[in-house]
């Protein structure tokens, strides 16, 4: 009974039934080519049996191996009659021994590899490699076929029906500013203001973000204000240099009080 915990403990450390078999074979302390398969089978079945007594669940592959080994044991003890369809038990045992031999080789190879100085473990490469390559980007990757294809693509797009119109930035003209200023001073805004002074900026049209368009609108509106002042339709005033320019309607004062 004292064997039980040890057997279970061992089972957990194995990478599967073959690993256990190989360990048991090594325990026989003989050349792998000369191990007693029968002894090995007995030992494996004993370990699995002990493991099952302690805990019921055991991965299927352990049980499959146990069943197969039990079959092998029975055949080794009582060979099938000559000419039976089943493979010779001795041949099966030899195949098992060969598999154990292959596994033994792999485990030794793994240990051999593991014992070598490994890069990044025991030996290290240059930590900050130096780049001795320089890219020369001066050349141009372009050939005649590309040029011709580009020309064809350009011409096709150019003649694809949409007439090309060079875009001209929409700038607020003096005429437009004059019309707007006149209309607004005479309209509801002008009437609300009466004879009061209003900052000229309030008559600017709504212009989207473009600073050039904003400057153009400001300049046009100022010129429009000067034009109206010259013709006597409005008064302009600026109380300080760079201060706000104020405008006042003369039309309203002149008594044109709406319809």
């Amino acid at each position, binding site marked *: 009974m004292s064997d039980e915990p040890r057997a279970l403990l061992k089972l957990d450390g194995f990478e599967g039934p073959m690993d256990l078999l190989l360990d048991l074979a090594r325990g026989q302390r003989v050349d792998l080519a000369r191990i007693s398969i029968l002894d090995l089978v007995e030992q494996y079945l004993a370990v699995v049996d002990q493991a099952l007594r302690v805990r019921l669940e055991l991965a299927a592959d352990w049980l499959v191996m146990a069943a197969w080994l039990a079959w092998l044991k029975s055949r080794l003890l009582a060979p099938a009659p000559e000419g039976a369809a089943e493979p010779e038990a001795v041949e099966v045992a030899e195949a098992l021994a060969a598999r154990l031999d292959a596994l033994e080789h792999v485990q030794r190879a793994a240990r051999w590899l593991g014992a070598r100085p490994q890069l990044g473990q025991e030996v290290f490469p240059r*930590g900050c490699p130096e780049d001795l*390559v320089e*890219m020369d980007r001066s*050349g*141009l990757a*372009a050939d005649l076929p590309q040029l011709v294809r*580009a020309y064809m*693509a350009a011409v096709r797009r150019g003649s694809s029906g949409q007439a*090309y119109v060079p875009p001209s930035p929409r700038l607020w003209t003096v005429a437009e500013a004059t019309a707007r200023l006149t209309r607004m001073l005479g309209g509801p805004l002008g009437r609300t203001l009466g004879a009061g002074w209003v900052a000229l900026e309030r008559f600017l049209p709504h212009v989207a973000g473009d600073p050039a368009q904003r400057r153009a609108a400001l300049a046009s509106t100022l010129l429009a204000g000067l034009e109206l002042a010259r013709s006597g339709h409005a008064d302009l005033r600026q109380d300080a240099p760079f201060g706000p320019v104020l405008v006042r309607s003369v039309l309203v004062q002149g008594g044109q009080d709406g319809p």
Partner: protein
Amino acid sequence: MDPERLVEALVFASAEPVPAAAVARVLPGDVDADAVLVAVQARYAGRGVELVQVADGWQFRTAPDVAPLLLQVVPRPRRLPRAAMEALAVVAYHQPATRTEIEAVRGATLSQATMDALLEAGLIEPKGRRETPGRPTLWGTTDAFLAQFGLRSLRDLPRRDDLLVERQPTPLV
């Protein structure tokens, strides 16, 4: 353990320059890190690789006189962006052409960046001005353009008519 061997390996394997203080931490307490570093530096003096002191520590570097000999120049030709290639092709076939004319053929505006790219590559050059209002610059291709595309002269360009077959109206099925 020979301190010089240790310092050699430490500086070699580090991804960053190694400060003398970090060297000292690895060496036994009674060993002078600076002295060891100077000794290693002397050992590598005149070799293909040298131990140098940079701002934040010590580092191996290719000897300055060897580096140019090992420098490998790899040609990585640039590609022209599509817009530049098209503008170049239009100039090639329609030269001398104004910027507005190039835009009209392509059916798209021509950005200053595209013009700059062609100018910088030396593929186009000004060829006087058109005597119309605004006197716009006329553009033409250069000798470098011919060389780039393996042409002896502009007459070697494939004929326009051979390129552009009149588009047939698609038959209605």
